[in-house]
């Protein structure tokens, strides 16, 4: 048997993070699949001018930027969830300890 490379506290925010992670993943996968399908089904669409660039460049840069934005959003939500949900756990533990001391 082997254990993890380092120890950590119990994380109450896991379920929430998994749900958000799944939805963000599905959202990005749809946008990425759309890029592939447009390339295959309607490649001329990718040559349409959009300002000084074209759809291919905008969509390509967009996919990169969208990944970065989703990553920051996911981290923001996850960090907030960890601080709130794990704080509740710490508060409960403190209360239990206090009750025990008083008893």
């Amino acid at each position, binding site marked *: 048997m082997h254990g*993890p*490379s380092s120890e950590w506290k119990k*994380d109450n925010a896991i*379920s929430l993070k998994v749900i958000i992670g799944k939805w963000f993943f599905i959202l990005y996968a749809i946008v990425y699949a759309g890029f592939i399908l447009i*390339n295959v089904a309607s490649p001329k669409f990718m040559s349409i001018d959009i300002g000084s660039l074209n759809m*291919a*460049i905008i969509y*390509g840069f967009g996919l990169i930027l969208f990944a970065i934005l989703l990553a920051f959003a996911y*981290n923001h939500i996850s960090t907030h969830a960890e601080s709130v949900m794990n704080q509740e756990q710490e508060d409960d533990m403190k209360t239990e300890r206090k009750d025990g001391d008083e008893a």
Partner: protein
Amino acid sequence: MNYQASPWAIVIFAMIVAAVLGISFHFSKKSKSASSYMAAGGQIHWSVNGIAFAGDYLSAASFLGICGMIALSGYDGFLYSIGYLAGWIVALFVIAEPMKRMGKYTFTDAIDQKFQSKGIQFWAAISTLLVSMFYLIPQMVGAGALVTPLLGLPYWVGVVMVGVIVIVIVTLAGMTSTTYVQFLKGTMLIVFSLVLVFLVMSRGIMKAPDQGGEKPYHKFITLEATDTAAGSVKIKDTTYTVVKDFLDGKGLHFVKLSKDGVESVWKINDETKQLTETQVISVSKDGTTLYNGLPKEAGAFYSVGNMSEIIEDGVPVEKTKTLDPFSFIETIKNGTVIRWAKTMVSDETGKMTIYHQLPTSGRDVVSPGLKYKVDASKGATTMQRLDFISLMLALFCGTAALPHILIRYYTVPNAASARKSTIVAIAVIGLFYVLTLYMGLGAMVNGVIDLTNDNMSAPLLAKSFGIFIFAIISALAFATVLGTVSGLIIAASGAVSHDLMDRYAGRNMSDKTKIRATRIAAIVIGGIAILLGLLFEGMNVSYLVGWAFAIAASANLPAIIMILFWKRTTKEGVIAGIIVGLILSLGLILLSQETFDNVYKLVNVKAPVPINNPAIISVPLSFLSLVFVSLFTQKKKQPSLEKTNG
């Protein structure tokens, strides 16, 4: 092309190598336990780990391969950038935190955590080794390609040099030194890529790019013919003598001419009766190689890449003013770019590799379709379009299944750090991939492409701005290879010592023995990497990395995903998924047309497998076999997978 080393290049190269080795010696005293050697003790800060992720991931394929492919094929090379970055979404949202919770040192640890199965230990370790080996090949090829222009040394010296330095880095301090080498390299790569793109924008674009006045662009000329009928070609310029005309395998018409005793090859346009100059490398039966009819030392084989038509503010111009990121792409889009195509011809005297001009609309350059045929109206077949989908699938699914990337999750203290370091990696890697488009297109229009080695496009673009920036960029590219190869050798040697020897063979090794075994494995794997690097000389490194992604996506990802999200997964199912993924992806690659052409060097031989990227077949079948075998091997007492994330 002929390359000469400069003192600056040698000094900067020596400084970077000294810094890398200094880091390794510094940390060697701190790597006494297996945990510190194989996972840096799990104590790396997430911000450092994030940049190190970028340093690990932005390999020779990203820097040399993608830029080279964009320089030759425009937007289609950028598809790799998009796919490589998208793969990090799978890593962040699906893999990062569970991976950190489940494993200790290796990828095998994580997928075997619930089952403790010898079969999984064996096959996951084999998969790690194979993926790492396939990923090592392009890194070594990139290293060999770099030392010639950088230090004026032959290809094989670069391959051996990288192998030896990396063996020193890895055997001295394992993951700790590797992490800081990757951190250093990741930071420098971003900074100097930004500098290079800034210089490209500042210079603007010109029809006859003269590399800042340093090197006049060779003007490829056109001759007029009076007759272009096969077998009776006649030209107006009587200083040339017609030797013979011939067709290539695609039916293109060429003619060999002679002038002043030097032979040259010209492409015939039968409609306009014009002959355009080509560049040709001919290898005669006695082994003599000539470049444009002369020995290599004569320097008659020219670097290429220019625009034949530039429109600025609606007016044709010879040269633009300084451009910004939008007007740079707009200028290329509205003009005409001279690209170069390659064809090979054999006759009774030997073999000829002919590079001929291909004027291409800028609109096509900045749209998909020049390399990967996707447009049915331009003759793309269903199989070619499936090949494209398959490539994009492999890139998307492969990142999160690369063993050398996955082990970096064990170097941080907790799951939140794993997540945060992935986010830093996505931001840094995303920025770099945007820059690849500008570096690649910059090379395409700045007359710096070496047709015999497109991997050198980015360093040669840097060279056009002076030897100092070239020396930095090339030494950095070399460090890029060092960082990635170190990570790969750590992953592969960990698979041998920890997965195969310690756990699978049940050697129950002490920390000291395990470190010694890992070091010996690193030396052996480094030696194999050197041999593979010598064997695959000349192939586009990004293309080769595509194979590693396909194997990782087929063999590893289905196992990871199903263990995380399907409770009925069994150990037999996992083993079946890995074996099917490995055999199918490898088999399809080895029997593909690209392998027949570029690895086996079989001229005009049709390969049995009609697609070059196997993921579209091997990934679904790996998933299916895992599900199918799992359903048939459900046991009442088998521990069902608890919700791994809970």
